[in-house]
């Protein structure tokens, strides 16, 4: 019971942290804002994996609300992008065959790519504004790689490089 309460408190704490971080990144300036999606994808992914699915979903909704209100995108774009990225993370988090670090890497990479892809693609669907395919692909790859690198670096910094090679697959009953 106590464990659950602590978990709930930690989840709420991390969600409010993500709320403030999203505000800072989306309304801030400079290099860090360029990688806002990657940084936020890492945080949301961490909440999904460590705080549970409901906490992760709450974080996704919070980021959606903040980005919808701050970013100058067509109405609904930020909500749709956050919902799609959230659904992807939710389904990837159910993967049983991978250890937590690698599952997180895949989740952050794909969520950041999808998220930024929807951000960049939807407003530019108007004729004349369409980005070239290469530019878009490079932008998505950059966000995805940044997110995955941040995730791996964080893990290594917090738990050491050995954490990447630990087997955390569920034991199979033969």
């Amino acid at each position: 019971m106590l464990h659950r309460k602590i978990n709930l408190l930690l989840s709420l704490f991390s969600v409010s942290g993500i709320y403030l971080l999203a505000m800072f990144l989306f309304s801030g300036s400079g290099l860090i804002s360029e990688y806002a999606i990657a940084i936020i994808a890492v945080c949301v992914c961490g909440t999904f994996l460590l705080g549970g699915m409901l906490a992760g979903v709450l974080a996704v909704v919070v980021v959606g609300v903040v980005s919808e209100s701050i970013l100058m995108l067509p109405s609904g774009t930020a909500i749709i992008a956050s919902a799609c990225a959230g659904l992807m993370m939710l389904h990837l988090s159910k993967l049983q065959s991978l250890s937590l670090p690698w599952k997180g890497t895949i989740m952050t990479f794909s969520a950041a790519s999808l998220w930024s892809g929807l951000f960049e693609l939807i407003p530019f669907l108007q004729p004349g504004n369409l980005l070239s395919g290469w530019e878009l692909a490079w932008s998505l790859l950059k966000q995805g790689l940044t997110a995955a690198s941040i995730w791996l670096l964080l893990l290594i910094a917090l738990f050491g490089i050995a954490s990447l090679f630990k087997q955390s697959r569920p034991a199979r009953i033969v």
Partner: protein
Amino acid sequence: MKQAGVANSILLVWLAVGCLAVGLGRGENLSLKKTLRDFNAPGLKLVGDSHQWIEKQWQQLFAGRNSSTHSEKQKDHLLTSRLQREVLALKELLGLRNSRDKSGESTSRLFGPKLIAARVLLPDQQQRWKTGTLIDAGKSKKISEQNWIISSELPLIDLGEDYGIKPDEILLAGRVVLGQIDAVGRWTSSYRAITHPKFRSPATVIKPRNSKQPIQRIQAVGSFHGTENEFCELRYIENTYPVRVGDLVVLADEQQRFEGSLVLGTITEARVLSNTPYWKILVRPVESEKNSRDVLVITEELNPLRLLAN
């Protein structure tokens, strides 16, 4: 498993909300954004305040170390600022050309902006001009400058009624607004610099965010005020519009009289205040051409080609 189902349902509902928001009309969209922005205002205020506090501490910490490279940094800053404005102008021209390509055959406009080159008078020239030592042909023949120019304490340029200059016309250096004509004499005119407390102009904010994206312009028009200090103020921009440090403040040209944006300055501080619905925005005027004597006055003229055609 149950938790996964609930999470999935919430996200699907969230997706549906997004789709509904896309389908809303323009007015409802705007009110939705405003509601969300109001909801987030306390958080934004907190983040903005803490951001500024951190920045101040950071600057204090490194103030001593960086003094030697200050001038180099200033040079870099000026160069960046100039390049930023050039990119802005090119983007706008590209956008204009694209829109013209789509809208059909290009035609020449009946009215167009006309730039008249002028030169700011040096202090000693102004002094001699005002005391009448330059024109001593005699007041009896009414060959003298107007009184309001003689008595004015504002700086002067070397154009007046003879070139069809009118009060309140904009004074430019490149794409940068330097000031506004105050009074027009026969051969000279006085102007209010951008930092003069009586300088007023409608202004809006544009966001040169990403090199790949087109320029984003907020829909609100505020009032740009000189304050006699280093910084000017941009007032009456509702805090429901996204504004941030580093955005450019440009002359609001709702009637699209000028091709391209005329830059007033860069936002250095934007704060959400608690008892007002407007941002408190401080703007640093563009510095690069401050010392240049060669300026341009922007006026409007009839297109001579169109007149000749008839």
